[in-house]
Structure formats: C-alpha cells, structure tokens
C-alpha cells in the first residue's frame, strides 16, 4: 500500500508538497486508507438509498402483501424453467399452501406467475418526504399483462411487509438518529469542554464533576429509565427526538474531556499567547487560532461516536423502550425478529441486523481512516 502511495506522491517536488493546505494533506493521507475509503463510499451510498427510500424501496414500509406472509426471499432469474435465457431479469411469484399437518405456510415458485423487472418505472404511489405524491420507483415487477406483481428480495415479515423496504425506511431513522445525536453531542461537548478548558478554575471543576457523575452511571439502565419517562401520548416523531436527545445527553462527556484537554494544552502555546498579546479577543483567538487545531480531531471523534449512537438506538428499540412502531427503525425491526420462531422458521427477518453490522463497521473503519488522516504528526509516506 505504501508503495502505491509513494508511487503517486514521489514525483511531486517538496515545493509542491509545501503548497498543499492542511486539508489537502489530510485528504492525501486519507486516500491511502483503502478500507476507510470504501467504507466512506459505502456509507454515502447507504445514506443516498435510505434518504431516497421512497424511490429505492419497492414498497412503502407498511404495505402488506397478503399473498406473502412470512414469505422467504425471492430470487432474480435470467433463465426460465425451460432454460431459456432472457435479458430482462424476472422472478416467479409464489403460490401459498398451508400445510394441513404442520400448519406451515409453504411458498412454491409458480412458473405461471412470471414477473419481469422494469427499472425506473411507475409502481406503488408514495408521498416523497411528505412533500409531494409520486409513484416512480427504482424498479417494479410486472406480469405479462403489465399488471404490478410483487418481489421481495429479502422476504416478508409476519404481516406480509417487504423486509427490504422496511430495512431502507428503517435505515433512514437509524442512520439519522446517529447524525442528529452527534450534532447535539458535538455542540454540547465542544461548548462545555471548551468553556472548561479555556476558562478553567471553578467552571472547569464543575464541568469535570458533572462529566464524572454522568460517566459513572451505567448507561443502559439510565437510558431505559429516561425513555420510559417519555409520555405515552407522545407521537412517534416526538419520541424519536426524545430518544435522540437522551442519547446525546450522555454521549458528550468523552468529547468534552478531549476538547478541554486540547484547550488546556493550546491555551499556553506560544502562538496563542502571542495572538492574545497583540490584542486578539477571546472569540478571535478561539475561532481563528484554536479551532483549526482541534477541529479535525473532533470530527474524527464524532465519526467514531456515530456507531455508538446507532447501536444505542438499536439496543433501546430492541428492548422495546426506544422507538416504537409505527416508526420503523433497525432496532424496531430487530425487536420483531427477537424470538426463537424467527431463527428456526423465518431467518430472513434477521436481515436488519446485518445492515446494522455493516453500517457500524463502515463508520468505525471510516473513523479509523479519518483519525490517521487528521493526525498532523502522521506524515509517514508523504515525505
């Protein structure tokens, strides 16, 4: 890997390199971290797909397909039962029989129900971001007569709802609760940590004690009691923000510590003292001289904290005290998968778990890459 990096960078003269701004430098360092790059790309795609879930998801999150209750994932085919190749991918619909002896729902691919895929086509109508009605989908399946068929890439749940669609809609909530939470965490952490570090003295001591108290509390029981305190009559959207707030109120402490440490260290650096001596006000000193020195670090910390938030939401909802239906989140979906029956009989309900793992892993790898990139001392390979 470092060979590659050197190969690309070597032709540049030291003079050119010196012209690079710190962020360009960071980007160069980041690019060397292939895994982080792929993770970042994966996250971008994930956010795009979940952000435009209405378009990408074949169905709405509550659409029930009564013909497919607990139906297993369907396959995408190019060859029909007679072995003929067809360029347009297609799938076979299911016929449902309930076994008289075992009462199990059996789905058999029915060659008579052949559904072809049509991309960027009209399907089920939806309200895009609650703004306008549309019915344009990434793909729809239609039978020979042009009627809409059904296709469940990841199967369906106990009410016949498409697992893939629910994963996408759920991802919108689960991935954004992390971001909103991190926004608040950043704000609180930088504000309180900055105050403590810059002013010091009494304020510092108070903030430090608060942090210690919060950090000493076991998080899960605390989350549990606080979310249980959310009023029952709240709409699901308010509950959502309630959970976000609760998660971030406990997430800021580590960040605040780091910011404080940075402030303490920077406060007495020569260039800060100089800036102050030539008459720079507090605001100018902080924003112009101190911020750039710890911002990259802060962003990295925040990135690494997002998976914590995602997992927090998932854990709370999994326990039934976080988000509640009709909100769909990965945690809510995993709560539905929370039984023995699912593992034995309908394992595809566990797919949301896979998405949680992938998203969290991607964030961790991205954070790792960012940390390497943001560290000004890490200049190995660039010289």
């Amino acid at each position, binding site marked *: 890997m470092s060979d590659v990096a050197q190969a690309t960078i070597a032709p540049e003269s030291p003079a050119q390199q010196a012209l690079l701004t710190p962020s360009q430098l960071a980007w160069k360092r980041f690019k060397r971290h292939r895994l982080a790059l792929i993770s970042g790309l994966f996250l971008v795609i994930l956010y795009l797909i979940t952000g435009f879930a209405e378009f990408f998801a074949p169905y709405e999150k509550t659409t029930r397909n009564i013909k497919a209750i607990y139906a297993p994932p369907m396959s995408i085919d190019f060859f029909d039962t007679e072995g003929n190749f067809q360029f347009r991918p297609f799938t076979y619909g299911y016929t449902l029989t309930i076994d008289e002896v075992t009462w199990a*729902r059996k789905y058999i691919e029915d060659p008579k129900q052949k559904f072809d895929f049509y991309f960027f086509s009209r399907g089920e109508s939806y309200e895009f971001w609650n703004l306008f009605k549309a019915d344009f989908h990434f793909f729809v399946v239609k039978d020979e007569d042009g009627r809409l068929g059904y296709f469940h890439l990841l199967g369906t749940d106990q009410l016949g709802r498409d697992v893939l669609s629910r994963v996408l809609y759920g991802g919108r909530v689960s991935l954004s609760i992390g971001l909103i939470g991190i926004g608040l965490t950043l704000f609180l952490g930088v504000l309180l940590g900055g105050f403590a570090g810059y002013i010091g003295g009494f304020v510092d001591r108070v903030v430090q004690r608060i942090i210690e108290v919060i950090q000493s509390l076991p998080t899960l029981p605390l989350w549990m009691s606080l979310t249980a305190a959310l009023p029952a009559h709240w709409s699901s959207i308010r509950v959502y923000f309630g959970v976000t707030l609760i998660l971030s109120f406990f997430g800021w402490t580590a960040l605040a510590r780091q910011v404080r440490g940075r402030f303490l260290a920077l406060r007495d650096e020569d260039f800060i003292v100089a800036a102050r001596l030539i008459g720079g006000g507090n605001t100018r000193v902080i924003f112009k001289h101190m911020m750039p020195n710890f911002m990259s670090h802060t962003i990295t910390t925040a990135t690494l904290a997002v998976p914590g938030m995602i997992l927090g939401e998932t854990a709370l909802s999994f326990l039934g005290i976080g988000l509640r*239906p009709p909100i769909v989140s990965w945690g809510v979906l995993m709560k539905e998968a929370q039984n*023995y029956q699912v593992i*034995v009989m309908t394992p595809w309900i566990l797919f949301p778990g896979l998405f949680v793992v992938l998203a969290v892993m991607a964030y961790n790898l991205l954070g790792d890459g960012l940390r390497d990139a943001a560290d000004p001392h890490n200049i190995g390979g660039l010289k």
Partner: protein
Amino acid sequence: MSHLTTKFIIFLLGVLWTFSTNAEEEKEQWPIEWYEPFKTASEIGLTEFQQSPYLVDQDLPPIEERLPVDPIVVYPLKETGKYGGTAHIVNNDLWQFFNWEAALTISADMSSFFPNLAEWYELSEDGRSLTIKLREGIRWSDGEPLKSDDFIFTFMHLWHNKEYQSETYRLIRGVRAIKIDELTFRYDFPRPRPLFVNFVAQYGDFMIDPSHYMKQFHPDFTTKEELEARVKEYDMFNWTQLVNDIRREGSEQSVHVPTLRAYKLVEASPSRRKYVRNPYYYKVDPEGRQLPYIDAFSSEVVQEHEIMAAMASAGQLDFAAFQMRTQDIPLLKLGERNDIIKVHIWKRLHSSDVAIQPNYNHEDERLQELYFDLRFRRALSHAINRDEINDIVYFGEGTPRQVTVHPTSRFFKPHYATPFLEYDPEKSRALLDEIGLVDVDGDGYREHKDGSPLTITLEFYDFETPKGITMELVLEYWREVGISLNLKNVNGDLQRERAIAGKMEMTLWHADRVTDILFPLFPDWWVARSISWDRGMWNDWSRWYMKRGQKTPSVGFQPNPIWHLKGERIKGLGTEPPPAMRQLQDWTDQMWETMDEAERLRIGQQILEGGVENLWVIGTVGLAPHPVVVSKRLKGVPLEGIWGWDNRWTLANHPHTWYIDEGQ
C-alpha cells in the same frame, strides 16, 4: 431369519401402521361419563381400592381409610392409565394441570353442573337458598375431614371480612353461609339467586379453605398477640396479606396449607415449584385405583412467552398450553415432526380474541361524545378487515365475529355475531364524514369537530391471545380511514391500575364469559355492572350500579339516541348511567333473580340484542384454534377441546386421569 419371516414382519408393521393412522383420523369421542354426574364406587360395584406404589413406604393409614366412604369414580379419556412419573410444566399451566376441586363442577359440554365435593345440592323453590350436602369422608391432604365449616370460614370470615375484602361484590353482598350440620350447609340470599349454582361450579374452588389450618391466622379465632407473633414469623405486614399469600400459594410457607386437589405443594422457590400426589385424594378410576396417575410434577417459573414456546417445541415440557398462541402452531408442529411432542388443536371459546373497548366514561368530554355516537363505533368496526386478520394471524381457521355468546349457548342467535362486521372502508369513511370528523390540516388523519387533533391511545396488556399483532393491523386499518391510533403496551400491573381507575382512552381483552356457565351471571360485555382489570368501558357507571345499586324506575329500552342524557357524577359513587344502560342493569338484576328459565332466556337475549344494536365493544376474530402441546409420553389429553376461563380450560377433561407412558 428366513426371508418369509422378514416379509411377514414388514406386512404386520404395515397393517399396524394403517390401523394407527386410521385411528388418528377418526374423530375422537369423549367418554359418555364426562357428560353425566359422577358415579360412585358403590354404584359400579367397586369394593377393592389400590394406591400408587409411590405411597407404599409412607407412614399412612390404609387406602380404604383415606378414601371417602363412597369415592367418586372418574373415567379417563380412553383406557385407564398407569401410576408413576414426574411431569414437567411451566407455572402458567398450573391451573390447567391440577384438578380444581369445588363443591360443584361443570359438565364437558358446558351445559350443566354436577355435584363434586357435594353429594347433592338443592336450590330452594323461591331461589333464596342453596343447600349443599358434602360427601362423607373426604379428607384434606393432612388427613383432616372436610366439613361445612371449611366453606363457612371462607365465605363468612374472609369474603365478609371488611379487612380482608374491602369491597364485597353484589353477588356476595348480604349472602350468608349457614351451617346445618357437619356436612350440610346452605347459602342464604337476600334476593333470589338461582345463578349462584353457576358461580359455585365455576369459581367454587376459591370458596373453600382448610379452616382447621387457616383459623390460626384469623383474628376471629386467634388472640391478637398470637396473631401478631405469627404475622411476624411469616414476615408479613398483617394477617390479610399472610392469608392471601398462603391461599394463593405465593410463598414457601404455602407448603403447609392442606389441599383437596390431586396434588399438594411440597416445594416453592422463586424459580420452581414441586407438587406431589395428595394421598387423601378422593377420586378413583373405574378399576378402583386412587387418582391421580402421575405421582408428581415440577413447575418452572418462566415469564417470556417466546421461551415457553421454544421449550414446548423442544419437548422440554409435558404439557404447555396457556400461553401458547395460534401463530406458534407451525413452530410447535416442527417439534411434532421431530416426534417429540404432539400438538392438539383446541378451540378457544373466546367470542373474540380481541374485544376493543372504548372508555365511555373517559374524562375527555370530546372523546366521550365521540364514543357515544354509534356511527363512530360502527365506523371503527367497518374499517377492520377481519378476513385479512384471520388469514394473517389465524391461518384462516378463526371466525370473524363481534363479541357475543358462544355458539353452544342457548342464548345464541347467529345474527348476534355479525352486526357491522363487514369490511367496508368506504362506509366507514362516510360515517366519519357524517359525524363531522374531517382532516383539516391534511396530514391524513381526521381531527375533532373543533379542529383539535384526534388521537386515540389504546393501552393493552399483550397476554394470552394474539393481541399485539391484531392491533398492529387494526392500527393500519384505522389509519386508512383517517383515525389515528396510538398503541401502548403495558404490563399486567399497569393494566390493572389504569383499567380500574378508568383512565384508559381505550383498552382491550379477549371476550370470555360468553358461555351458559358465565354469561347469565356476568354479562360484562353488555352491561356496566362491575369493575375489573380487563374492562375499561364504563367504570363510573359500574360504580354507580355497585354502590347505589338499588332498583331504579325502568324506562323503555331506547338504544343510541338517548346517550346525551348523562347522569350526574357523584364522587366515589360513580356516575348515573344513561337510561339505556340503567335498563340493561335492571335486566341483569332480573336475569339473576328470575326462577323461570324461559324468562331468563328472554331477558338474556334482550341484553344481547342491546349489544347488537349498540356495539358496546368491537370484536375481531374469535373461536380461534389454540395449540395444546402434549409430550410424547403424556397420555389421556383429548385431541380436541374447548379452551377458556368459562369452563376452566381442562377441568371437564379430568387432568388427574392423564398419565405418563414412557413406552419403549
């Protein structure tokens, strides 16, 4: 081995196989004796009695002395069983596994009541007293004889004790239990109470206590000092808590309480209970062998339904049914395929697995007004796609129904089950429009007439029947017609507290009390007459009926339009219900009091008609399949049965005749 022999054996096996499968396909017949009063040993000429080998080494009087003078003979489902074994169950199935013993019992077809502990019973012609004569020589598990005092203790000293029972129910109020002799006693009623017979048969096991043991904990029979010392010794606050605790087998101390049931408690820890056979049990099988067949059983405390279902399907339990759900059937059947369990499909007697109850007495006036409007209730009912619920939740094996009596009931008429039943979202929307509920702000949900947001919060306890999944669907159906429903899952304690306080906007429970056993006695789904944790419709009206409950002048029955005539609310005494409901309460009184069965039928059907017209509660799907999981080695459990509180689940199937056959 010659070639021929092998062929012969294969042929024989084939024949056996055909026979066994044929036997499976034939509809199982319950023994005729289950529909008739018990025979006694002398009637069938039994003179010799045997006991389980389990009891041989124990220091006990001979079997003849332990059995009553003329023991009851109980016929098992098919053949008589064998002694021995330890069964494993979970705590939820305790009530279904040990036999309840009351003065009377219920026939297998739920149509009549037979003497059980009693030798005979007689209701006086004016219906003002019920005389019960006990069988001679029945003994408690400690060898003490059963006496009429044991009934009188419970009735007069517990149920009529203000400290123990702060609120006496209407059925009990003013009723006295009077001793005639050691084995005969009677209940005297201030007004005719012919239905008290139903009550004794269905609930009678709670109407009897071992008075010789219990007296030491009761202030009427013990000095204050002694009592205080005992309460302290048992680590309780007061004697009522102590008595309550040991009666309910709540703690370790309960192991000392004598019982009449087939099994007595010998070990009670927070995680496990152990029961062994009661050496003094008073029933025998047709061969004169003392019941029960199974020597002992242990019961594990398991809370999670999922874990229970998993244990049951893995064959870890000999009997599991109470918390099994219809949706569990495929999973359980998987265990059956592995040949470790059998899954018997019974039918729940519940008229509807989910009975949605609007709170007509809710403090929010706007909500009250809405609920009072029959059009609103109709709209909610028409919005529900019951066939789809049936397909999704019940494999199409349930019956879409409103809440009414069970088809076996003599009160039943087919049209009671079908009002406003069809799925018709258009009609539903039209009705809601007509009421004036429109979507003002365009969010897809209708608002109150004054434009304020309308969201109904439904709190429910997801226990026994498939309530959660059904409501998830109902939420969708109602959303489609623009009604915003907010579902809240609560635990049992919260449900109790909030329902009794009448705080819930809406709640639900499954509709039992719908058979001839309980409907005439407790027509709870149609009349505001009592307050309980499973109902949240009309607590204020019920309180009024319970507290002031005197007869009120009757007005002709007028259904819906009269709702606006609301009564005044008196603090602690409830609200006077509207005339229509007062009429129904009057009818309930009459149904209780009349001695004429035809009259009772007529009044009962009037009350049910009231339900048809008013749709007090909204039903979904009822008479649903219920899985009863039986281990491979447990025999004697019927393949089909009727499951529910009314007939006490397995009572008429005589669980003490079930036996363990390990086979080879």
